[in-house]
């Protein structure tokens, strides 16, 4: 007899699956330039001249391959920012992030178009951050070919 007040079983599990992500030649080029040359590279559509960040293989608007890379930044302007108070888990590690932290979308100097670079801002007081402020990328001494070769952006 199935009892209405019966015990209900829950099976908790922390799933942790190893994954491997291929950079591919386009993202790979972007990451390699961060690591080896401390340069931020966008790629440029030969037809519409739009700068793509992140660099993508094809301009989705013109539907042509995009091959030329151009250096942009390292300074730029805050287009938007988010002050994150909620410490959600980072699925890449399974660990809760340390909050508060600030993310920002930066329109880098030299970019034609509106693609922004998405990264961390080293300021967590909302009164000290405004859209339109100028910021600069701060690179790590030790770099591995990841977005975190840029440590964060700082307000200048």
């Amino acid at each position, binding site marked *: 007899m199935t009892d209405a007040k019966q015990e*209900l079983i*829950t099976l908790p599990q922390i*799933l942790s699956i190893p*994954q491997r*992500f291929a*950079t591919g030649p386009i*993202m790979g080029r972007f*990451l390699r330039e961060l690591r080896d040359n401390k340069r931020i590279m966008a790629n440029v559509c030969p037809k519409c001249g739009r700068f*793509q*960040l*992140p660099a*993508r293989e094809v301009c*989705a*608007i013109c539907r042509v391959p995009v091959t030329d890379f151009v250096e942009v930044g390292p300074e730029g302007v*805050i*287009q*938007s*920012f*988010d*002050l*994150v*108070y*909620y410490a*959600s*888990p*980072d*699925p*890449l590690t399974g660990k809760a*992030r340390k909050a508060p*932290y600030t*993310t920002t*979308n930066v*329109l880098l100097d030299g970019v034609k178009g*509106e*693609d*922004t670079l*998405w*990264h*961390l801002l080293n300021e967590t007081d*909302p009164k000290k951050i405004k*859209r339109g402020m100028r910021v600069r990328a701060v690179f790590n001494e030790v770099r591995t070919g*990841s*977005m*975190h070769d840029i440590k964060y952006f700082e307000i200048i």
Partner: protein
Amino acid sequence: MKHRNVGIIGVGQTVHSSHREDVNQPELIHEAVTAALADAGMTMADVDCVVHGNMELFEMIHQPDMWHVIGDGAYGKPGIRVTTGGTTGATLVCAADALVASGLHDIVLAIGFEKLQEGHTTGGITNMADPLWGREIQTGALTGMTADAMIEEFGEERAKKAAMKHRVIMDKHAMKNPYAHRRFGFTDEMIPAMIANTPPLVGDLTIVHMCSQSDGACAMIFAAEHVVKKLGKKAAWIQDHVTVHREETFNLFGNHTEVSTMRYAATKLFGRNGITDPRKQIGVFEMYDPSSWWGLDWTREFLLLSGDEHLKMVENGDIGIDGSFPINPSGGVVASNPIGATAMVRVAEAALQIRGLAGERQVKRDFDLALASGFGGTLWTVLVLLAKNPPVSEEAQS
């Protein structure tokens, strides 16, 4: 022109909740399926094909449509699985529509579900961000950028008041919806305290602005016109739908010139259906509002408004069930969000409104068209237009 018309003749949903430890996934779905079949006056024997969807990262069960056959009646039937993030439910509607309109099947059952309690909602959604670009810093569907932009445009006091009023109106609607997950009993008098005291999640997006995390399922029965006529059923007809997403989703933030997917979808859909004054020509809008800030902002986008018209609509209560342009009589996504079902629930609720079956949350005045939107994934929009009368079709003309 459509090859043949498709009518929604059955709607079933569970009471959305965060406490469904008493059922596993197929059992949850079974509740919605039996309700939809009962509404349509059918059995599973009548169904030709089953389309099924959810977001797998929330329960981490691979190919759940296979397992769910023990609850959803799909045994021995052709089926398709659809999974498009938060828009899944609405995309399921589009898929069912295409399957019936094409002539491939006469009667299709669509099922959307989610058991969010089985996973971590924000952690799951965060996986949509590119692992090499942004996944470490992205926070699911949580963002304060829209609040920030609205505060800059309209001033902090007015923007915050309007967003909280939107929240309160949605709760008032949810109180009339027996299927809604969260029904708090908010009142206008509570707004100043809610603004001052609610803990923030990201920027000025607070925990009260943000949608639920619900367990729930929704099922709908779609039938070809000749079936609807033969059964003598009252249907909500699918007049049109459009799906819009944009390639540069995670790169364009802040001030930019590109039109939102909401505005683009509305422009296209209204344009090809002769809708020049949506607030007059459409009777009710079930909008997918993941947060009160987005619900408020997207009122301007979907209705192709400018300036502060949308704020005035909320401030004046125009969006109430008895207002001049009701939005989310069901309470919306902020009240119930079983993600794989949510976008379908928007269409289901709009269908109930068209058929006059929405009970206490029924919009009372006469209208011919209802609108429903889906949102999700990488900021997609699915926009569905339902009609009281069948549109002109090739089949009807032949």
